[in-house]
Structure formats: structure tokens, C-alpha cells
């Protein structure tokens, strides 16, 4: 079996169709950062715990460190680079970010919740954010920012 397999694939990235060639061992995180020049998505733990590498895959949050690049063929990926200023202003005002390492992942999960406010009827905001670890804010700034983004005053 050949060791230099390359897989050609096409997927939707931040609203555009892109075509790439990947190795079987590439993760989506590597593809984004090193091949596609989108370093906004961060690598934290590399084992799915911390959520710094969160992207939206077919509309739901996923850790790009655990996704083989070849699995995005035909799928839709949104990364932090697709974020509009309006998405983050409430977060900035609430002190959601300090050192910034977790922030791209936090923003992607928060955008998902903002776009699906019905989630907050079934899940607590802290439960929904539990896969995004932060070592600076103590989380209250993150939850306050999320609530401001979705337009709620009080934590469910």
C-alpha cells in the first residue's frame, strides 16, 4: 500500500467552495491552519477536551483536532474567520476574553447557541459551554457574554 496517498476533496468553507488535497493523517485543524492559511482556529489540548479548535461542521460544534481532514468532503465548515464584528461585540463588552487562546472556540459555540436559541430551553448555558475550557475568566465573563449575545438577561 502506498504511503503517499493524497485525497482530493471539495467542501464549503466559510461560504465558499474549496478544493484541497490532503494526507490520510491530516486533521481538519491542520488543513485549516497550515494549508488554507486560517490560523484563527487554535490547537489547545489536541484531545478533544478543551474546545479551542471548535468549528461548526454542518451547523454544529465539533473539535477540529478530532476530525480527519478527509471526512469534510462534501460538508460545510464555518471557522472563526467567518465571524462578523456584530457577533463578538457583546462578548467583548462582557469580558468574555482575556488571554484569547480559548476565544475562537468560545465564539463558535456561542454563535451556534445564538443561532439556535431554543437550545437554551433544553440545556443550561453552562452545560452548552462545558466543552470550551478557559483558564482566565472564571467563566462568568463567558456566560455573561453569551447571554448578551442571545439577548437574555438571566442565566437559565
Amino acid at each position, binding site marked *: *500500500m502506498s*504511503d503517499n496517498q493524497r485525497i482530493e476533496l471539495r467542501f464549503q468553507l466559510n461560504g465558499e467552495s474549496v478544493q484541497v488535497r490532503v494526507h490520510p*493523517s491530516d486533521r481538519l485543524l491542520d488543513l485549516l491552519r497550515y494549508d488554507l492559511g486560517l490560523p484563527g482556529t487554535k490547537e489547545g489540548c489536541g484531545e*478533544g477536551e478543551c474546545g479551542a479548535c471548535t468549528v461548526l461542521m454542518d451547523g454544529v460544534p465539533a473539535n477540529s483536532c478530532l*476530525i480527519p481532514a*478527509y471526512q469534510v468532503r462534501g460538508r460545510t465548515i464555518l471557522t472563526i474567520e467567518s465571524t462578523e464584528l456584530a457577533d463578538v461585540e457583546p462578548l467583548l463588552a462582557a469580558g468574555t476574553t482575556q488571554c484569547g487562546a480559548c476565544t475562537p472556540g468560545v465564539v463558535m459555540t456561542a454563535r451556534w447557541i445564538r443561532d439556535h436559541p431554543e437550545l437554551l430551553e433544553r440545556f443550561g448555558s453552562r452545560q452548552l459551554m462545558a*466543552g470550551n475550557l478557559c483558564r482566565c475568566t472564571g467563566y462568568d465573563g463567558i456566560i455573561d457574554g453569551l447571554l448578551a449575545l442571545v439577548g437574555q438577561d438571566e442565566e437559565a
Partner: protein
Amino acid sequence: MRVLMPESVSEALAFKATNPDIVPIAGGTDLLVQWPGQLERQAASYLDLSGLDELRTIRWTQDTLELGALTTYWDTLCQPRVGVEHPLLHDAARQVGAIQIQTRGTWAGNIINASPAADGVPVLMAYDATVVLASVDGERQVPLSAFYHGYKQLEARPHELIRKILVPRREHDVQFFEKVAPRQAQAITVVGVTVAHSSCGWRVVASSMAPTVCRCPHLESLLQEGTPVSCPEDLLEPLRADVSPIDDLRSSAHYREQVMSRVLYFNLGETCPAFRSTR
């Protein structure tokens, strides 16, 4: 490293038949952990199941809920009917990792990964789920409770794939899933207790208490017979006959036994009037 990307289940089964060492990959949430640091130890070839939409189905028949092999925790959480008929599937799904893991991790991957601390396996086992294994030779069904022969020793043969999981549709008057862990998300189960009672009898399933997730026949017959239980300690003897917890970096055998007996005692006391009345 090489990856094969079949376009149909029959193509996947044919690949698996000619190359039994090939490693199937679904959500990758077990296989890709610490991936770059482990590349030298990775398998030579992978079989990507993720494109097989025919495996991504949730279906109800007259008496069965069918979960296709690619069904994720999130897929089940998005189906209110699953929560109504099989609430423990929702309870467990919500407690697997965090959202980012729930959207990718599959019930079938949880079964094959065979962790003694798994959270998907025990609720399926308590509902008497059956694993449908497929190969080029056809299909066969194995009860999940008979799927594990020892630590990471599975009934599945090298050329087989899980095609789907069948969960009987039954009425349950008692059912709970209790995951004891240091944090409510992203934590590995220290003690897991799942109980379900239907017209088919009691099911008590323990996680992180033995080399595999397992049923507890002594505890089940104690409940079946209505043996009086006046304190958690009364459960220790049958519990010790059913499980064999160990000391490890997450906990001690002693703590695990104590916690399991208490979770059983207090949860049954709360949810089962018949159990209360034996005190």
C-alpha cells in the same frame, strides 16, 4: 497510512473482508485523541464509514428502535421521541463529554471502543439492546450483554462491522442512569449505575466496576425477589458477587463499592415504591 472511502455498506464490507486489519473510523473521537503524537503507532489503513448515509438513520418499527451505526449522541438528542420512549438514551447522551463530542461520537463507536467506563453502552445494555453485525457472509445479532468476553475482548470478528443497534420498545416503570464523576462534563465515569425495570424484569448495569460494562445478576435477582434491603450495606454482598472494581488513578475499589451501593439504594428508594416498602 492509507484510508479507504467506500460509497456503500456492501463496498465497506468487501474492503473489510479482504483486509480484516483495516480500522473502521466513524466520529473519530476515540481514534484521533493525541493523534499527531501517536502517528507511528497508528494502524496502516483506515476504513472511513462517515460517508455512508445509509448508516445514519434512526427508525422505529412496531417493537424496536433502530439506531444506524453512524447515529451520534446528538442525533438522538435531536429526536424528542427517543427521549420519551427511551429517556436513558438522552440522559447518557447529555453526559458524554460535551457538545463537541456529542455531535461526533457514535453509539456504535462507544460499543467497539469497549471502555469499562463507557456511558453509551450501559444504557443500551439496560434496555436489552442487540448489536447487528454485518459482514460479506451476512448479518448476525448479538445481545449487547453478551458482547464482551473480557477487557476489550469483543464478540465481533475482524471482518465484521456494526450495521445497527436494536433497542426493544418496552414500558419501564423504573429507570435511571447515574454517572458519578468529578465534573458534570468532560469527565470519565468513576462509578456508573443504570437500572431499568419492565415486564421482562430488572436490569442493573455497572460501569467502571469491572473489566467491561456488565450486568449484575445477583443484584437483579435480589430486586426480582423483593429481598428486604434496609441500608446500602445490605447491597454489598450481591454487589461484590457481580463486580470486581479496582484501585486506579481515578478512585479506589472501596470507594466504588460504597458509591455504587448508595446510588442504588437511594435512587431505588426515590423511584421505586416496591423497593421502599421492603425496608
